[in-house]
């Protein structure tokens, strides 16, 4: 029985490749994955994120589940029990309307941040 753990992804395998990631970015990735792939179960989402990031992000797949719960509590995704491709019972997640709107908002703010950083780096680099 401990206190609340901070929601920062920890890589227990110290030294392995992989960068720590903030929860906001993981959320956005999950949402985007669901937008592209449609309804998907937790394992599928985790594998997809690994693929897209081309193995640079070695996240512990389990960390996706607290994020999924968070998104569910915020009403951006919803969960239903269904059957997977190999006949297993699994929980499938899908986007809600609010979730869709959230993607747009987050994308915008990301692009703004990226643009600002780019400008910054450009000016710092130039002489």
């Amino acid at each position, binding site marked *: 029985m*401990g206190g609340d753990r901070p929601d920062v992804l920890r890589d227990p395998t110290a030294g392995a490749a992989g960068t720590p990631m903030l929860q906001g970015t993981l959320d956005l990735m999950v949402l985007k994955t669901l937008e592209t792939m449609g309804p998907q179960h937790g*394992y599928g989402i985790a594998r997809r994120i690994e693929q897209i990031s081309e193995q640079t992000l070695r996240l512990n797949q389990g960390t996706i589940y607290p994020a999924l719960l968070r998104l569910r509590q915020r009403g951006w995704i919803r969960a239903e029990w269904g059957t997977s491709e190999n006949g*297993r019972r*699994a929980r499938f997640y899908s986007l809600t309307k609010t979730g869709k709107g959230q993607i747009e908002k987050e994308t915008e703010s990301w692009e703004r941040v990226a643009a600002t950083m780019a400008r910054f780096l450009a000016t710092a680099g130039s002489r």
Partner: protein
Amino acid sequence: MILSRFVAMFRRDKLDAETDEELRAHLEMAAEENRRRGMSEEDARLKALRDFGGVTQVREAVRLREGLPFVENLRRDVGYALRQMRRSPGFAAVVIVTLALGIGANTAVFSVLNAVMLRPLAFAEAGRLVQILSVKGAERMGPSAPDMRDFADRNHTFDKLAVYDQWRKNVSTSRDGANAEEINVGLASADFFEALGVRPVMGRLFTANEGEAGHNHVAVISEKFWASRYQRDPRVLGRTLTINDQQYTIVGIVPATIPGWLHAAQTQVPIFEPFLPYPGIWSEQSRDGRNYGAIGLLKPGVTREEAEADLKRIAGDLALAYPVDHGFSVALRPLAEMRSGDLKPVLFVLSGAVGFILLIACSNLASLLLARNTARQREFAMRRALGAGRPALVRQVLAETLTFSLVGSVCGTGLAWAAVRALGAGAGASLPQLADLTLDWRVFAFALAAGLGTCLLFGIAPAWLSTRVDAAAALKEGGRNSSAPGQHNFRRALVTGQIALSLILLVGAGLLIQTLRRLEEQDPGFRIEHLVRGHIYLPPAQRYFPLPRRRSRQQKIRHVNARNRQQQRRRNHQRQQRRTQRAVAILPQRLAPELPYPVRVRMLPPQLFSNAIQIPLRHRKRHPRLQPPHHVDEPRTLGAIILRVRLEFRRMPKLHPARRVETARHHPNNRYCILIQRDLLVDHAWIAAKQLLPSRITQHHRLRHMRLIIVRIVSPPQQRPHPKHIPKARIRPRLAHRHRRLRPRNHRPLIEIEKRHA
């Protein structure tokens, strides 16, 4: 979202099962994919687990997000605390009883405070209601009726101004006046009810012309009276009440919301008649008849200061126009203060005292807990070793104290309820504000807050100190249960604090008891043993006894006394004296320069002082014409005024014995001598206990049909005096005590006799 998390607390098992299934599915899918890639069964499974990360950690993380961990932990801790309580019931009992007593006492005092000060008044627009007082120097009293009429006519700041009074009268519900009882009857105009926002339940209120003589034989009764005497008969309107031998018609019923303390009465006034104490109440002669009740309803938006300034202006005008009003000003008091005013200092002191008691209880419990928790060091060490943080341990100890506090709170509230019932029964008789002492939501909230407060107070320090565990040392075999130095100092401080507070309380209580005892043993200045006092209320017709008849009654008394003088030694013996209140006005011009306050004069038969009360008189000037049986109310008789003098009176040099004082009005040619009796505490015998200063009544003599009778019984009243000694024939049969003959049945010769110090 919080709501779903709150609900999730109760569906914990199902949610856990779902999470488990989901995670299992994930691992199996991962293992299958690995197998498809060519790994062996075992390798596939292990790689899936590795890729996943810590399964237990994920499960924990999900659980934390799903429920409300704080509440769940609390639940668990409280459950544990309850189990601990059951395991050591003795300790639990001590703690709970201590807490119950402390919290119960505080709650009881708070409920009194609530009833007297905090609860809003039961009137609409209570914020705009004020009480109006006439002020002269340091004396405050109710105004007179003509003054109030002028205030009402000339003010700009009030919606309504009403003057009212209450008298005890003989009331009977039947036409012939049978079964009369003494009831406190209120005298009020419709303005009074309207100012208070009281609307009739049935019927109507008084009209304006019913306040005039000849039209005022109407009455309004309260709902309680209607329920108890008429059983809520809807045809009660139009029935007749007999009040002091006069027929009154019931015209309306008002709800029982007018509290007794408005009328300085112990219970609510059940019957009202129009405000007409006597026909001349509005005439100029009555302008100095003060001490009537007066309330006012401010206009919306008007502040009390504005209204007071307005009335002061009018009072100034009146003081210039009428000599009797000279020196009088006006003060306004919010009506709520009328309810609470005198009790405030007492209540604050009492609250402080019970607060101290609670502090003592808390520090007691703190040291108890500390002592107890030293025995649990190993348990705490174990938990620390298993990974509990220090905040978790503190939370656990606090949860235990919280459980104790809540249980103690509940028991304390129960105790307070019982105390309040007892208090209401006893003290309600003397303090009308306490008549309806109930526990409302404020009291419960206070009890809860007190419980939480004590929990924090006596729980935090022990919790902090007890959980300072060195896990390794404590877990060693043979580790002693020693208390850290921090605990030691804390406990010393606690004990010191407790002793200090206890001393304060003891000293205070001791002083209080001493003061009470001294008050009881005070020498009132006259002989009080075997003194019995009583009063009867004579209906109007009695008052108009012509003088000779009154004298003959007194003669008869004396005759009776004389006859019995022979049997004095053998039998019981009663002497009766009568004191009439007779108004004499003192010309203010003569005395005003000397006396900063108004002067009350009472006419007393001389036998009162010599025989019945036996007050030693100084400067006893036995003027030859003062001998009994002369009556001081005969015109042109030289009478004597005995001024009751307090110590301050000595400071007034111009007033000394044999000073002549003039009277005005009824007996313009009377002159009186002054006999000064110093340090006289005669008031113990009278009903108005507060009047130690000379004060003035006027104009009441024809109206106060109360006769005070002082009876000295030479021997203890266990033996019945002979009935012949009491002139019962003089009392008309239609009095309230009709069926009580003036025979001392049960040793009560008259109604409302009180035994005093015998």
